[in-house]
């Protein structure tokens, strides 16, 4: 019944033509759509369950791994200095691969290339913890990815995916997050889909999760086939979203309903 109601609502949205991008002055993080209780959970580090993963990440940062027997800290030293602002610039262009990689992908490159260890699985406790720890060092730093001219075609592809209708519901991301972000869907705020706080703690998940997990959930929601974790499409979407959020402060680890 609930699904039926949702589909009716979404189909109504799908009928409308795509509107323009959100004006700079009207951009709002998902934080701004939350209740006071959920905001409080994010605001205080000691109340924020995402901080458990950050702590976990701090431990992993110092742990030696792989045949190189090196810890992240052996090369990058104090993350508070070396990783400050790094997450705000991701996804970034990786020359060796000729494509952009997101923060999780970057960490896994260090796992394989520099630690000579096997990469962490997507959404594994370790990868989430390390990316949360690294991204937390950018808290408050304005998001600024995509300066690299080599990234331009990938940002463009991400944008094309964002506005492309897909799935049984024939909806584009933009139908909800550009055109209807001031509305509600089955009691929940739609929000602008700003990627400011990832990885973040969702009350729905009762766990920390990555931006890719969130994107996959949305894609499944419009009854389309979700791209695989680590696929270029997801990274391009992440890249477009980050460039769309340019200048908004990083909130990691954010809390969302």
């Amino acid at each position: 019944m609930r699904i039926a109601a949702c589909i009716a609502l979404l189909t109504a949205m799908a009928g409308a033509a795509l509107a323009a991008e959100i004006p700079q002055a009207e951009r709002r993080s998902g934080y701004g759509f939350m209740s006071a209780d959920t905001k409080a959970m994010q605001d205080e580090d000691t109340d924020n369950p995402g901080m458990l993963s950050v702590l976990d990440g701090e431990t992993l940062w110092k742990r030696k791994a792989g045949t190189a027997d090196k810890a992240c800290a052996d090369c990058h030293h104090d993350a508070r200095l070396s990783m400050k602002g790094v997450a705000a610039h991701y996804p970034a262009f990786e020359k060796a691969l000729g494509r952009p990689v997101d923060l999780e992908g970057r960490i896994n490159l260090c796992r394989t290339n520099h630690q000579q260890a096997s990469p962490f699985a997507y959404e594994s406790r370790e990868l989430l913890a390390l990316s949360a720890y690294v991204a937390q060092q950018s808290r408050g730093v304005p998001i600024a990815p995509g300066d690299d001219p080599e990234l331009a075609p990938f940002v463009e592809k991400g944008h094309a995916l964002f506005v492309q209708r897909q799935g049984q519901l024939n909806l584009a991301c933009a139908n909800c997050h550009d055109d209807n972000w001031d509305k509600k869907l089955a009691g929940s705020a739609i929000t602008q889909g700003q990627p400011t706080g990832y990885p973040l703690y969702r009350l729905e998940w009762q766990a920390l999760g990555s931006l890719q997990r969130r994107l996959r959930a949305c894609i499944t929601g419009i009854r389309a086939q979700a791209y695989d974790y680590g696929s270029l499409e997801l990274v391009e979407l992440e890249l477009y979203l980050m460039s769309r959020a340019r200048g908004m402060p990083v909130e990691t680890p954010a809390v969302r309903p």
Partner: protein
Amino acid sequence: MANSEHTRRTFFGITGGAAAMVIVRPANATPAMLQAAIRNVVGEANVRSGKVKLDIPPLVENGNTVPMTVSVTSPMTADEYVKSIHVFNEKNPQPNIGNFYLGPRAGRAQVSTRIRLADSQKVTAIARLSDDTFWSVTADVVVTLAACTEEAI
């Protein structure tokens, strides 16, 4: 934080006579399991409404993580204090949520935690004071489900 007043409807009545027991108002079809769980804690004692305050949002965004604070009016002295606080719900598979054991040195009879609510329902907090009297409060919580796009996860 949204406040639910202690004046909210409570579904405990008091029957006359020595063997007082918890009864249910006809309008509130409280499951027998909830009554049994409460009886387990209070035994044969009366449960009066008052003294207990339950801060829980009346409308929550996600039933998976609902912040909740219970506080009890008590001087918290060596002779007059709160022994324990017990929290129950109406519609989860199990009626108990948590038992919290305090004592005079707590200084302040207040506990907070985060709970799961499977559906819109009543939440009841009962406090046991040092004189072994029981006091309670009940609040209604409406759980708005998350957007349909989350189901696939």
